[in-house]
């Protein structure tokens, strides 16, 4: 609600041109850019809202590579693992094509300088059936340095992309704004590759106060890529399969390093190992079992680490400093490390993230989306869970080759001036030169709408407070409330470019929430404990729902369609 109309801020219009625009310079985006530079003379432009040196999920580093074909395993066994872990609703063609590339992309990152542990024979040291040990603290700076050495790659740091430019069904570029100066960008491109990552901050987080951003996923991944696709009418898949991570309490640091690394099992407050009571130890079941134990009053739950040696403890400190320093600080400053105290665990709020579960763009085998000229890879691309870091590299590589093929012989399509100005005006309406001079200009702040959104999702769309369970009545309320917040968001005001970014982040998350809610409504079964658990339909129903739930946003509504499962050796092409 606007009480006054203050003077709008001026924005300069700047038009850029490139062959391939990559939106998001994280794991998949940087690798895709390198692939293009090494295999063609195409000009690449990476638009990144932070700085590629430490942006995206790998900011703090990563402790292991969790998708690798170790000795004795094959791409087929990797596919089997993913299929079994996710009740079969995956795009086998996508998972398999990634699995076949995992080891080659790993070798390439090692050549860039990543330290990977080797045994006396020179083989990588495995941490399990699919994992290898590394020192990944500097993995992102290594990637960024490689990107910056390529003459054909231009990096536009601190530019926030907000929407695609679409002409007659084809994506011909994107709009964005600088976070440093009052510049509105129109970037014209022959092909666009979206690698923005997934969405955090949709649900009320574990630590909603001062430490609200101490979360599993990057809080700066706010679903922009999903939202831009949704608004442009791209088909999306499996948004009902949310990802919930089992983490160390409070610091939300990883548990896999302890569970796999030192073989610690999950125990409840009575000291009983409980995981096996709940069926196969799939990713959803590890989470579900912990929720159930707490519901039965047997919490808190722990990873049983007490009694590990001091040497092991010291190694764990180092491993955590290399990826989640908060947990190491917590152990050391309290003087109660994992050798003397079991590590308490909890589930996070749900995220939408295609590198772990299967939410994202509905893509063909070549990673083309349903919008011509637009490709997707990494966490923003759907259908293939358990990608992790190396899977995002592999998918970035596949998408890069497809984009290179697509641009061959193509010309740039000029964006019409009037269209640019209309978009610039849309951005400008959020900017006020000085809200302190005119504090009554709007009733609500971005922060208030964000909190309201997170509360709605928590209570009515299966967040932590509802033990991740949804039902139709609650989802109906969620849909209505999120729609209301989306309407209210148009009156938000920003006093500077940082606040303008925050407005777009909350807007994007509201669009993603709408899609999540519609997908949760559509899957009338329970396919994955916690990730998608519907109290109205508590059983798995293969007869009706061994399918993908897909959607397109049309005329203000999320329209659902169901698609049949794509198998390993199929080449999937988009049809109408």
């Amino acid at each position, binding site marked *: 609600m606007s009480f006054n109309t203050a003077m709008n801020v001026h924005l300069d219009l700047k038009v850029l041109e490139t062959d391939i625009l990559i939106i998001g310079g994280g794991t998949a985006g940087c690798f895709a850019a390198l692939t293009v530079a090494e295999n063609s003379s195409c000009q690449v432009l990476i638009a990144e*809202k*932070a*700085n590629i*040196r*430490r*942006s*995206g999920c790998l*900011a*703090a580093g990563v*402790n292991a590579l969790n998708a690798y074909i170790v000795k004795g395993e094959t791409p087929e066994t990797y596919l089997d693992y993913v299929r079994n872990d996710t009740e079969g609703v995956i795009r086998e063609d996508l998972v398999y094509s990634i699995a076949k590339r995992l080891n080659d992309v790993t070798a390439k990152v090692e050549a860039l300088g990543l*330290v*990977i*542990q080797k045994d006396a024979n020179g083989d990588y*040291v495995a941490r399990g059936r699919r994992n290898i*040990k*590394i*020192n*990944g*603290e*500097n993995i992102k700076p290594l990637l960024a340095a490689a990107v910056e050495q390529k003459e054909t790659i231009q990096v536009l*740091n*601190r530019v926030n992309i907000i929407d695609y430019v679409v002409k007659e069904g084809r994506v011909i570029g994107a709009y964005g704004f600088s*976070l440093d100066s009052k510049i509105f960008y129109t970037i014209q491109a022959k092909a666009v590759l979206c690698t923005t990552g997934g969405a955090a901050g949709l649900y009320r987080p574990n*630590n909603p*106060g*001062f*430490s*609200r*951003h*101490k*979360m599993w996923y*990057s*809080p*700066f991944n706010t679903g922009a890529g999903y939202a831009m696709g949704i608004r442009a009418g791209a088909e999306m898949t499996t948004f009902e399969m949310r990802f919930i991570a089992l983490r160390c309490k*409070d*610091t939300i640091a990883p548990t896999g*390093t302890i569970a*796999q*690394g*030192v073989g610690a099992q999950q125990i409840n407050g009575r000291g009983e190992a409980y995981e096996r009571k709940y069926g196969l130890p799939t990713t959803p079941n590890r989470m579900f079992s912990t929720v159930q134990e707490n519901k039965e009053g047997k919490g808190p739950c722990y990873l049983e680490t007490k009694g590990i040696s001091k040497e*092991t403890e*010291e*190694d*764990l*400190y*180092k*491993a955590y*400093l*290399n990826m989640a*320093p*908060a947990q*190491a*600080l*917590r152990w*050391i*400053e*309290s*003087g109660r490390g994992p050798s003397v105290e079991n590590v308490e665990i909890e589930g996070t709020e749900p995220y939408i993230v295609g590198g772990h579960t299967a939410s994202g763009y509905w893509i063909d085998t070549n990673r083309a989306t349903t919008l011509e000229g637009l490709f997707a890879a990494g966490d923003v691309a759907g259908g293939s869970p358990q990608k992790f870091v190396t899977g995002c590299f592999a998918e970035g590589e596949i998408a890069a080759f497809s984009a290179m093929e697509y641009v061959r012989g193509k010309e740039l399509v000029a964006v019409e001036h009037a269209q640019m100005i209309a978009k610039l005006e849309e951005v400008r309406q959020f900017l006020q030169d000085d809200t302190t001079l005119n504090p009554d200009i709007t009733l609500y702040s971005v922060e208030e709408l964000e909190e309201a959104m997170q509360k709605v999702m928590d209570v009515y769309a299966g967040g932590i407070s509802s033990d991740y369970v949804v039902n139709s009545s609650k989802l109906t309320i969620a849909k209505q409330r999120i729609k209301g917040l989306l309407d209210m968001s148009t009156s938000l005001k920003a006093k500077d470019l*940082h606040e303008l*970014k925050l407005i777009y982040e909350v807007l994007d998350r509201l669009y993603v929430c709408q899609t999540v809610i519609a997908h949760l409504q559509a899957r009338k079964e329970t396919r994955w404990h916690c990730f998608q658990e519907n109290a109205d339909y508590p059983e798995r129903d293969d007869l009706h729902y061994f399918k993908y739930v897909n959607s397109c946003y049309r005329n203000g509504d999320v329209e659902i369609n169901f698609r049949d499962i794509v198998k390993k050796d199929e080449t999937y092409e988009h049809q109408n």
Partner: protein
Amino acid sequence: MSIKISQQICIGCGKCLKVCPGGLIHRNEAGKSYVRDPQDCWGCTSCLKECATGAIKYYLGADIGGLGGYLYTERDRERLHWTICKADGEKVRITINQKDANRY
């Protein structure tokens, strides 16, 4: 989760604000870095690792078990020294060589 930037130690080189994945570090009128929205920090420590002067301290919010201690980093070529300073002043230093892979 957050950081504090010492205004006495900061030399205003701007490396930390460039690298913050959330764009949370800004410059004040004196040209020095400050955190604009401390509650928006993810806790990734990217800024600490850029800072050559040790001006940035990383600490846990009281809501996630912080007890008044903090950590900072110093880089010595391929070695990264992590110093945890407990509330009672005791310091614990852990050095990680970038060339060594994690054991776990």
